[in-house]
């Protein structure tokens, strides 16, 4: 397993002009780094809806790279979105799931996909994405594997699905809103309109 901050730092250092959508734990950690105008920290959220939100944005901005960093608990709430996205197949979208096996922000309860909740093996989100028809899907659990993902994350035509096996963060890890939600939405819309007109 790797650390969530390592995954996010890797993306932040190489994202270039990519739009990056984060939520819950990924948004909390993302806000500790270099935040740009092209970041959308989806807090407050409707848990489970980040993939759909990012897909819509990617469809509206087909020439822009869009990277969404979802949690495993969030992904479980909307597995159907994997099928929706593969049907639309936006080539500019990368969906990452950071899988720590638990609902971290509510007090570290294991999800139903975690091995402790099951009589069989834990669930593989990357295998689910393969079955849902994604162009590519992979699982990453080491730094070497993370480094090998650079082309997929930032360059190759997608949509791509990457499951990052990460360690849970310790302690009280509730996310904080990065500011008034309506103002952040309007700012992103204005940027989106400007890009459409350019």
């Amino acid at each position, binding site marked *: 397993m790797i650390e969530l901050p390592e995954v996010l730092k890797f993306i932040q250092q190489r994202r270039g002009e990519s739009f990056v959508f984060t939520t819950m734990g990924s948004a909390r950690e993302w806000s500790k780094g270099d935040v740009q105008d092209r970041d*959308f920290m989806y807090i*407050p*959220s*409707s*848990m*489970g*809806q*980040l993939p*759909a*939100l*990012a*897909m*819509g*944005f*990617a*469809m*509206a*901005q087909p020439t822009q790279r869009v990277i969404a960093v979802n949690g495993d608990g969030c992904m479980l709430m*909307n597995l*159907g*979105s994997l*099928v*929706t996205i593969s*049907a*639309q197949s936006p080539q500019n979208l990368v969906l990452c799931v950071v899988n720590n096996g638990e609902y971290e922000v509510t007090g570290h309860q294991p999800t139903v996909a975690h091995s402790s909740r099951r009589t069989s093996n834990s669930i593989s989100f990357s295998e689910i994405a393969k079955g849902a028809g994604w162009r590519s899907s992979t699982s990453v659990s080491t730094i070497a594997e993370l480094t090998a993902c650079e082309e997929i994350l930032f360059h190759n035509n997608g949509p791509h699905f990457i499951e990052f096996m990460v360690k849970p963060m310790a302690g009280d890890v509730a996310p904080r809103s990065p500011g008034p*939600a*309506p103002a*952040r*939405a309007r700012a*992103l*819309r204005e940027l*989106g*309109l400007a*890009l*459409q007109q350019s």
Partner: protein
Amino acid sequence: MFSGPEITTQLVGLGVSHVVWIPDTTLGTWESAFTESKDLELVQVCREGEAWATAAGLWLGGSVPIVVMQCTGFFESGDSLRNAIHDYQIPLYGLIGYRSYLNSATLPGDTCLTFTEPVVNAWNIDTYFADKLEKRDGGQAHFLQCRDSCSPGLFLMAEGKA
């Protein structure tokens, strides 16, 4: 209430770019007109909550989406709607099919007749109710009014055989 070509012409005339939907037996008859239109992109989702989030993403990216679903899906999708429309104040517009409304005499047991209007009202969104054929074209003015005021809106469309 509308044929596929009629609703497609109206949506294109209003500047809608994407229809994000799940069909029901009434709305589903519009599919071929939507897919044949060169001016509309049809985005079908798996569950209605996805529809509001997808539309929100489209709007954030600069597009003009409309959400189309039956009232039963509207019931299911409340949290996603709440987040997009009330937390982020994204001015999404939805066309909601009101199941059984025009069959209320022959299908009195459909609880959609009990819950649709209270649930729609609970979300505190400006709603235009086309409860009969003569009121259907008022939806265009309502859409434009919502667009011009950057406000969310709903077009509640009676469904049934009457």
